[in-house]
């Protein structure tokens, strides 16, 4: 990970100064300095992330004792090593529940909920977010106010917005007053799923919107002028110019949202409640298991979620070429030497934009 951060900065330097035989940027003096400068950060990451993850992995191989002594009613303390049993139990279907997808093991129900909530939310957020960005990019009076206003939902802590939406979706709440009939959003019905989707989209479409807006700012006006001269329609301009050129930014924004939504906890737990299988996500399930002092299975589910998130992130990078750190700049510079045509002004990196947006 140290190389991850160090490399993009040091690579251009080594390229130009005649040290081309040195393949690894870490082997020169700057690399050692970089390591030293990064050491405090690495130690903090190791302590606050590395150790807990390692402990979670260890925990997932254990189960707490549960046998009750028939004469005293007490349970012997401690836990026992069970190998991969916490993982293999998932496939045994010992804990069937009935959610939106029929009766199945509680884990798979949560897995499907997590997946479908993520897919639906991210698609809606992307569409609405891009639309927001297109509107915000236009020059009009009060644009600053709109930009700030769009950020408000993003600034509200999710658990607070969960309680807020709980009031809105109450049986006698505003939502039912507006639509004029009584839908029991909070009753673990099909509507609960959409309540989650609405609340999440409301909150985070702005995130995609702002990142996309930053991406739009980097598209030079000449391109659009040329398109107009050639007689392109607005739709053609959007599909042929705006989308491809904003794609690097947009893909990163979508990646961040996907990773975030896969971990969703606050909205289902805070708004709909625990034990409601139509909206129970993996995070909520894992939390509930831990609350029942079954730390082993809870850790196992958390690790599966971790792997799931990792796989999704990897696929994003491989298939869509999400450029998270911004070393596409480096690649582009290399290409330039070969004489490729490049639009003027390299786009700001996604991370810089994200940093600016927060």
């Amino acid at each position, binding site marked *: 990970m140290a190389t*991850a951060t160090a490399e993009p900065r040091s690579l251009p330097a080594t390229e130009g100064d005649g040290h081309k035989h040195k393949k690894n940027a870490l082997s020169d003096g700057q690399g050692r300095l970089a390591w030293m400068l990064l050491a405090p950060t690495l130690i903090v990451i190791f302590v606050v992330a590395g150790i807990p993850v390692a402990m*979670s992995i260890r925990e997932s191989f254990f189960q707490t004792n549960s046998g009750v002594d028939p004469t005293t009613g007490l349970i012997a303390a401690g836990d026992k090593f069970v190998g991969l049993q916490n993982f293999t139990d998932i496939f045994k279907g010992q804990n069937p529940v009935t959610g939106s997808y029929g009766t199945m093991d509680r884990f798979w129900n949560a897995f499907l909920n997590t997946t479908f909530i993520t897919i639906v939310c991210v698609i809606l957020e992307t569409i609405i977010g891009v639309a927001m960005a297109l509107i915000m990019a236009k020059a009009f009076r009060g644009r600053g106010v709109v930009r700030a206003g769009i950020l408000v939902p993003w600034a509200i802590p999710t658990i607070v917005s969960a309680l807020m939406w709980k009031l809105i979706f109450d049986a*006698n709440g505003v939502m039912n007053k507006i639509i004029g009939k009584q839908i029991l959003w909070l009753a673990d019905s099909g509507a609960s799923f959409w309540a989650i989707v609405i609340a999440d989209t409301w909150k985070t479409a702005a995130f995609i919107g702002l990142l996309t807006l930053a991406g739009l700012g980097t598209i030079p006006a000449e391109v659009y002028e040329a398109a107009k001269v050639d007689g392109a329609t607005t739709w053609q301009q959007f599909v042929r110019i705006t989308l491809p050129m904003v794609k690097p930014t947009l893909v990163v924004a979508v990646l961040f949202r996907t990773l975030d939504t896969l971990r969703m906890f606050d909205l289902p737990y805070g708004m709909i409640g625990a034990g409601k299988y139509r909206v129970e996500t993996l995070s909520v399930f894992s939390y509930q*298991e831990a609350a029942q002092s079954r730390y082993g299975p809870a850790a196992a*589910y958390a690790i599966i979620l971790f792997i799931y998130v990792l796989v999704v992130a990897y696929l*994003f990078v491989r298939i869509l070429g999400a450029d998270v750190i911004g070393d596409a700049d480096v690649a582009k510079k290399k290409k330039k030497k070969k004489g490729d045509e490049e639009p003027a002004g390299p786009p700001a990196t996604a991370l810089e934009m994200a940093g600016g947006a927060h």
Partner: protein
Amino acid sequence: MTFVRPARRVLIAAASMSALFVAAACGGGGGGGAPAGGGTSAAAADFTKQGDTEWWTGKDLSGNNKNLVDQFNAQHPNGKVILHELPNQADQQRQQMIQNTQIKNPKMGILEMDVVWTAEFAAKGYAEAMPPDTSTEGMLKATVDAATYFGKLYGLPSTSDGGLLYYRKDLLDKYGIAAAPTTFDEMKAACDKIQAGEKNDKLGCYAGQFDKYEGLTVNFDEAVHGAGGVIVGDDGKPNVATPEATKGLQTLTDWFKDGHIPAAAITWQEPQSQVAFTKGNLIFLRNWGYVYALNQKKDGSSAVVGKFDVAPLPGIIGPGVSSLGGHTKAIAKYAENKGTALDFLKFISSPEAQKSNTLATSQSPVLESLYSDPDLVKKYPFLPTQLKSIQTAKPRPKAVEYGDVTLAIQDAAYGALQGQTQPDAALQALQAKLQTLIK
């Protein structure tokens, strides 16, 4: 590191970083699993050691906990009790107590236990068994039973609670109904008469707490007992797939279907159901004692001041049976100063402290004599009714894995109330599940 394309490596590293934090965040809840406190360690607890100790309890909403602590500390110089407030949600209180048992926090002295936690806290060694000579004289039997596990007392009851039927006396009088209903059939007849006469769409008949949470377990439990059934029999074995229990659940399901329970009640917990009654939108309400004061509030928030009364819960056949509520104070397993903790428990169950606490908080006392105390009855006229409710109350199932048991009950009841499963099928599934959970 092998020399893959740097760009890819960077991306993968970054992506795994973000994923890593997921696991770290989740692992925080699940990790750190030090072995639970040893239930089998036979070392006798030392109940003589005096010194400062903490009382772990939920938020001090009435402000009276502080008064009690101050009073105790004034007369107990060699060891003080310090109020340690926890979040308002019972689940979160329970989790903090468990976590602090696991790290053997010596400061955690007195645990405010919900009545349903006794089995878990005793079996898993979170709470210390009381000394054998502990007196429970004058306490309501139901509350002492609730604090007992395998013949041993794990704490002293400090507050009790039972369900009450709040009803609109003004409407019953108006339509010539002489007394509060004692069965669901009588209640239905009264509703039909009143609703036909009032012609008010908003006026619902009856509601309890039917959202999927502990309140549903309570309401289901009462329906089953009120129909002559049980969830767990006297022999400690689950016995819920019976015609009686089915009749209990069937009745609630039917009432939802024909609208005698408003559809919205499937999302109601105590506050929502209380608001419906207080605003005058319900004829009958099942709720706890604390609602009395809210209904009598003269600041304009209540539309039923002076128009309501309380009665024992109606049953489905014969008189109703309440689920027992309330709290027990237990001594934490790893408390350093158990002597002070024990003295505080005795202080809290003294008549003076019990009386002052009821006056300040409206929580029902655990001493039977106080239910006829003139000062208390003057302020809380429902106390005699409450006493009847508690005396006949049944405890919810005693189970070490109570969280699993109550969730299984909620699964069964919630599915049936929403019309997704038939009551008899739901109860058969529940019976099968409970047999694996309660052995």
